[in-house]
């Protein structure tokens, strides 16, 4: 168990940062995102014999992460209390603007219900179709559509989309 099964430690080392970024989006929190990845990797480890070298361990891990994040809708995390107000947003010329924007976006993601957050990430970040998302999460396409719509409406409400459009224009 020191080095794990053949190929697993190499897979984790090479894909961990990307998986964590995915986990952060799925959970809206950097710590939770890393937790999510590690929990998913434990499951991947348990089925590694069927995933390596012929299978697709990263796709499997990402699917596990998505389903775990989706199931969080039925679990209640009591250790954190969401705040009513978003933190102050960055000025356009702020040298830390990207970092601040990241914090604001993650804060907004945290405020979304898990089901909306997962759908939003799968739809707009992973680029999956509504039918693909419905298949992966085991729900209807209508559910996907409505939750994506609500999530985007929430982001609009926070003016995040205005921000990203503005900063994009300024950079251009």
């Amino acid at each position, binding site marked *: 168990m020191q080095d794990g099964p053949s190929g697993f430690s190499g897979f984790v080392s090479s894909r961990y940062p990307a998986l964590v970024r995915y986990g952060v989006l799925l959970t809206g929190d950097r710590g939770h995102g890393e937790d999510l*990845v590690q929990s998913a990797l434990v499951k991947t480890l348990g089925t590694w014999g069927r995933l390596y070298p012929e299978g697709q361990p990263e796709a499997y891990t990402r699917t596990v992460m998505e389903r775990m994040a989706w199931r969080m809708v039925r679990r209640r995390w009591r250790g954190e209390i969401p705040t009513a107000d978003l933190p102050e947003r960055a000025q356009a010329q702020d040298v830390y603007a990207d970092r601040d924007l990241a914090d604001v976006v993650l804060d907004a993601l945290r405020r979304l219900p898990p089901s909306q957050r997962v759908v939003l990430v799968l739809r707009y970040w992973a680029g999956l179709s509504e039918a693909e998302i419905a298949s992966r999460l085991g729900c209807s396409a209508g559910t996907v559509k409505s939750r994506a719509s609500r999530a985007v409406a929430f982001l609009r409400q926070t003016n995040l989309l205005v921000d990203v459009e503005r900063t994009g224009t300024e950079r251009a």
Partner: protein
Amino acid sequence: MTDDQIHDLLDRAVREHQPRADAPWRSVARRARRRRRRNVVLAAAGTLVVALGVTTAIGVVPGVSPVAPAGVGGTRLLMSEREVGNGSTVYIAPEGAIILWDSPLVVTPDGWSDVPRDSAARNVRTSYECPERGNVVYRATVTLADGTLIPCIGVSPTPYVWHREAEIPNASAILEQTILPDGTVRWLITLADGPRGEATYAAVFPGLGQVAVSRGLDGDELLEMVDPPAATDGPDFAVPVGEDFRVAVQQVAVQQEDARVRNLPADGAVEFLTVLRQQSASVGSCDADPRSYQFALTDRVGTSVAFFTLSNVDGCLSLVSSFGGGRLLPTAELISLVRGAAAG
């Protein structure tokens, strides 16, 4: 706003993010080992659940009637604990493993009715089911003395109704689990190609005598399950504080003198734990306090890490955990843990 702009927004949120774990493989390995330790405890339930699906042989304790009580279908698998003490009887029913016992402490989350336990319902029996794969939350049905059924979701005071999340692959080994009357658990593994392994653990459910033999478990997985326990898995062990889990008290309940169960703020548990810690420091101190608490610790994703049950109903402190067996004393670490959760 276009899809690309939303994608850009999300991408910029994580573009510069770097994981905190310097050696992620080691973190995953630690978590996998911790999961295996839990599985050793969960395997008692896992064995039962497996019996529903792929188990081809089940050892039944000789001399036990195979007849299930009225209203419970299935085959009686295990010796009634009443025959060796006060406790549960386990049945394998089509919908899952069912464990019956005298009404235990039941935690009812928001939206569910508390379970009355007055004198008229003293012989209440509670049925715990764990019918769903990959789901550690199970349903409980409390049957009152008048036959009324009250469905609820409960947290078990003992771990053996937990359902293992592990998938059970093709048959390649036989697991024989023996829980001796003194609470010692013996695991005997026989792989398909002949090698046998044996391991012994201290159990957290003493007084239960049972033998369950199941076929259909993967040999490697079983050997991992009986991996020698870490030093902290002894009769007294530590709360997993300081590891990469963020733990929190998920459910806390108190059983009051009026025999009703209600949720309790975690800070109340801190006070109780502190008192019990002081009591435990005094030799021979065993003040009766008809209260019990349950703590379900979760990681930051929400996966249950361990259950602790602290009971003083019998007039003597008893604190057991599903985290690998043994007794857990109300250490300063546990108090700190609960206090931290209360503050959060």
